[in-house]
């Protein structure tokens, strides 16, 4: 009840004309930044922070939050239209969204993504009001072993994304983990896999790898044929709504995506990519035609996009209540809060309650603004398809270079991007899935750090993971996911043989 009263007070602040304008401007700028291939929400939010320097803290954070979820939707647009994900969470959208675009259904993919994002975002924000305080108390009981076990669940999902070959997905997951090891060891500060190159001490940046694998790799693959006319194959855009028979499927996907994204958003240490990936896996598992996933099925877009946005809103809970950023973009928001003299953490709700509730109220409003902006504009964004591909190639390459460079102001990162682009081309040719590598690249450092901190706590005993109930539960879930995936990967003759033996 107290929460609701405070939320109403928050609406009073967020609904002022000034703050509404900042939220609208943030949504538009965020979507624009998200649409530019190579600039995901993290880079986009970071480079727009200076715009908010002169604003008062509440307006600044309202605008940055709007930029954040605007950019999330912008990333969806490029994933669907040109197969370039703005950030890791959009990688999943490429799988079916781009295939839908190729079949001339880009409008439906973008339309359902906007509707799903609105629903997921609004429900997650409502949930945020209800569970922020009690859940923060529960999450406070998590230590390094629980976080490690939770990340194991995330990594085991790599198996679920296996695609055609389990071993190829596995090896790509491991390659991502090895990439994440490059740089200074997080515990002892020892350089690893740096080969004496100082620039590698900071590790391999996520943005250059994504730009390389997805942006450059795709362009190199297209260059095999011809630079002219490839875009035309992406088809025409017709209806922005799903077909009548697809609404029911979409509705259940959106509901599942909302629950999943919201739950994962509450847990610091996960990220929106995990929410989107997990939603995709769930949709594939419950589907009557899992073999069609990756060929342009609408629930492959609806579920992950909803989960992604539900996550984006719910992820603010651990930030506000515990001071724990769940993703790189949230970490940038945290930096912006600190720059505005607000220290995220349990005290924020007590010392700056008016601020927190105004931002939460603005999330509701922001979701409405995004829907109003996006549904009518879907057609406008879809016109990107009509730009000749050879022109777009130059723009994509230039924005990839800017994206790779601007995060750390490093020309070296452009080199990393080119290297990953050549690797990505090879992987695409050989049908090695790249999504697992991206997921493990993000989760790797956190996982290693929590593992080593846990073992320091237990003085080297691995029993710490099995004697703590929450950690044990997450490990059991991991084991179940791995066992199921391995079983499904076995040749059908072996599985049927086993059934016969049981009979």
């Amino acid at each position, binding site marked *: 009840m107290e929460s609701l009263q405070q939320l109403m007070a928050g609406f009073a602040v967020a609904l002022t004309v000034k703050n509404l304008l900042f939220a609208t401007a943030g949504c538009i700028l965020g979507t624009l930044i998200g649409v530019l291939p190579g600039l995901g929400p993290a880079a986009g939010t970071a*480079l727009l922070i200076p715009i908010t320097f002169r604003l008062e803290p509440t307006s600044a954070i309202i605008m940055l939050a709007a930029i954040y979820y605007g950019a999330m939707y912008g990333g969806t647009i490029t994933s669907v239209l040109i197969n370039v994900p703005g950030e890791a969470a959009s990688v999943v959208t490429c799988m079916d969204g781009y295939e839908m675009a190729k079949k001339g259904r880009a409008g439906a993919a973008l339309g359902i993504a906007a509707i799903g994002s609105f629903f997921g975002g609004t429900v997650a924000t409502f949930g945020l009001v209800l569970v922020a305080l009690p859940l923060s108390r529960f999450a406070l009981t998590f230590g390094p072993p629980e976080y490690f076990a939770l990340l194991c669940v995330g990594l085991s999902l790599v198996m679920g994304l296996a695609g055609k070959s389990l071993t190829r997905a596995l090896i790509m997951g*491991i390659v991502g983990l090895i990439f994440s090891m490059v740089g200074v060891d997080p515990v002892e500060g020892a350089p690893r896999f740096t080969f004496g190159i100082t620039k590698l001490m900071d590790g391999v940046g996520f943005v250059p790898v994504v730009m390389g694998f997805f942006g*450059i790799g795709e362009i190199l693959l297209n260059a095999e044929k011809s*630079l002219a006319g490839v875009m035309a194959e992406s088809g025409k855009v017709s209806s922005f709504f799903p077909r009548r028979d697809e609404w029911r499927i979409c509705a259940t996907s959106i509901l599942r995506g909302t629950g999943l994204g919201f739950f994962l958003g509450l847990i610091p240490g996960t990220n929106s990519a995990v929410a989107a990936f997990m939603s995709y896996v769930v949709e594939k598992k419950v589907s009557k035609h899992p073999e069609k996933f990756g060929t342009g099925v609408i629930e492959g877009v609806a579920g992950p996009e909803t989960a992604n946005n539900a996550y984006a809103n719910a992820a603010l809970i651990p930030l506000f209540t515990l001071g724990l950023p769940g993703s790189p973009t949230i970490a940038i928001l945290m930096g912006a809060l600190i720059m505005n003299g607000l220290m995220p953490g349990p005290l924020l709700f007590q010392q700056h309650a008016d601020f927190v509730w105004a931002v939460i109220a603005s999330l509701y409003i922001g979701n409405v603004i995004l829907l109003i902006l996006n549904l009518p504009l879907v057609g406008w964004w879809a016109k990107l398809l009509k730009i000749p591909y050879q*022109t777009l190639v130059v723009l994509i390459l230039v924005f990839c270079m800017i994206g790779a460079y601007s995060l750390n102001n490093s020309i070296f990162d452009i080199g990393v991007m080119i290297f990953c682009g050549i690797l990505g081309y*090879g992987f695409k040719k050989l049908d090695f899935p790249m999504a697992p590598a991206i997921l493990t690249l993000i989760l790797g450092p956190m996982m290693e750090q929590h593992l*080593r901190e846990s073992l320091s706590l237990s003085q080297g005993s691995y029993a710490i993971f099995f004697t703590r109930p929450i950690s044990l539960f997450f490990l059991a879930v991991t084991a179940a996911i791995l066992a199921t995936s391995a079983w499904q990967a076995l040749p059908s003759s072996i599985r049927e043989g086993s059934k016969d033996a049981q009979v």
Partner: protein
Amino acid sequence: MSRVHLVAWTILLGFGGFVIYESLQLNYYGSDFGPGPGFFSFWLGVLVILVSLWEVTRTLPRLHEAVPADFFPDGAGVRRILALIGALVAALLLMGTLGYSITILLFSVFLLRVLATQPWWLTLVLSLGASFGTFFFFRALQVYLPVGFLGI
């Protein structure tokens, strides 16, 4: 196709060996309790080798399978790919000296005129937009792209 995969998995096998070799140069045990900097990467290297060996042994009996006709690009395709990679590497090497704007101007002119065979007027308009246009757009957003010896 299996021959191509055999080559890929053999390269990965070598990569696994390299990761193990590099990991052994680091401490397996940490100075504190528990694993050191080399622990995680060592076991990842072992996993790469195990998975690669499994795939190599699975692929060997299927070497007779033909490689699909369109797997390797034709001569023109190879030239386009090499030209793209060459242009990217040249841009990388020149950006520190010439700065972002001039490098991207040359890069865009090359791509649009030589590779995409666009008319000169379109090449110039698009190249100026992609180079100086984005430079000033991002400068307005307070993202400062590299400046060369000419100060732009």
